[in-house]
């Protein structure tokens, strides 16, 4: 009758700086700054004023802010017009809006061969 569900949403607001490796089974919404690594099974949202210096692994992503690091998405990534990714991107589907910027390799893997072995291992990202 009462289930213990581990899915959680974490929100890092504007003006907040996070340092360290963030991992979990839920979604993450970033409007502040994060340095480290992100590994989540849920959805990642990077807000327009957010700044992320991290290698990222997530199931889906929506990017409006700045990411410096490698991005590995199991399903789909949407890079909106204010999105800016400085690093390689791997996903099953990629949508890039007009005005978005990517400085790195883009690998679209429609057969969904993105697995634990191909996912990016956590390592420190050089600023």
């Amino acid at each position: 009758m009462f289930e213990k569900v581990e899915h959680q949403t974490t929100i890092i607001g504007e003006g907040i700086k996070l340092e360290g490796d963030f991992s979990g089974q839920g979604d993450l919404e970033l409007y502040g700054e994060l340095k480290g690594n992100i590994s989540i099974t849920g959805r990642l949202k990077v807000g327009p004023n957010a700044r992320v210096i991290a290698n990222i692994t997530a199931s889906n992503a929506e990017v409006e802010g700045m990411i410096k690091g490698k991005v590995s998405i199991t399903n789909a990534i949407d890079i909106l017009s204010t999105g800016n990714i400085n690093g390689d991107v791997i996903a099953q589907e990629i949508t890039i809006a007009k005005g978005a910027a990517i400085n790195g390799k883009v690998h679209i893997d429609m057969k969904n061969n993105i697995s634990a072995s191909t996912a990016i291992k956590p390592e420190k990202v050089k600023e």
Partner: protein
Amino acid sequence: MYYYIYDDFIATPKLQVKLADLESKLALLGIKGPVSRLHALTNINEVMRRAVVRGATTVIVVGDDRSLLKVLNALPNKKIVVGLITMGPQVTLARKLNIETVKAGIEAAAGRKLVPVNTGMINKFAFLQNVTITGGPFTAILDGTLTIKSDHPQSTISIVNPQLAFSKDKSSLFEAYLTPLKGRWSIGKVREEQISKLNFGKLVLKSQTSMEVVADGSKMINNKAITIDIVENAARLIVGRGRPEGNTIKQE
């Protein structure tokens, strides 16, 4: 064995008739037991120790939310079951446990429907529902691994136990909401993107200015450093019939 603890404010003449009525109903139900009355100089830890020595397995507090917290902070072990019969002004917690009235409390005590609850420990003080901390700028360490720094000169951190709150995120971890406080001359409301929400098992909080801390309605001594831990299944509480939505507690 049932053991009863009457909080100090129950001793008023106004409540004596209610108390006499309560005691006769407990006797009829066969759950009457020894009574300890608290007053200003009572050491609650000593009262609980004596209750255990006398063989108490169930401690029923007659009072309000604050009374229940006094007993939870003095609980010698997790085996003791705790109940509440509400007679007092603060009933928020009692409402969430469906024992808001004296009648509901008596029926719950007799029915013994138990739920294990997590408590939070804020600098060795146990709380059940929520803590509000005002101060800043904050630096926090989450679960020993993540460091969080806030640029906001003043913020409020609200910590909530989702077991006793109507929270969509149903987890055993506590939730922390960090909201910046607007300065006197600031225009406009705090935007949604400025509010942070985190789940944690342990939080170490430091502030450059003294923090104002209110835990379950009680004000605590201001500090510049606070540690908040979760104690899982810290106590077994008696609850009333029915269950509010959003509650994740499993029945025993």
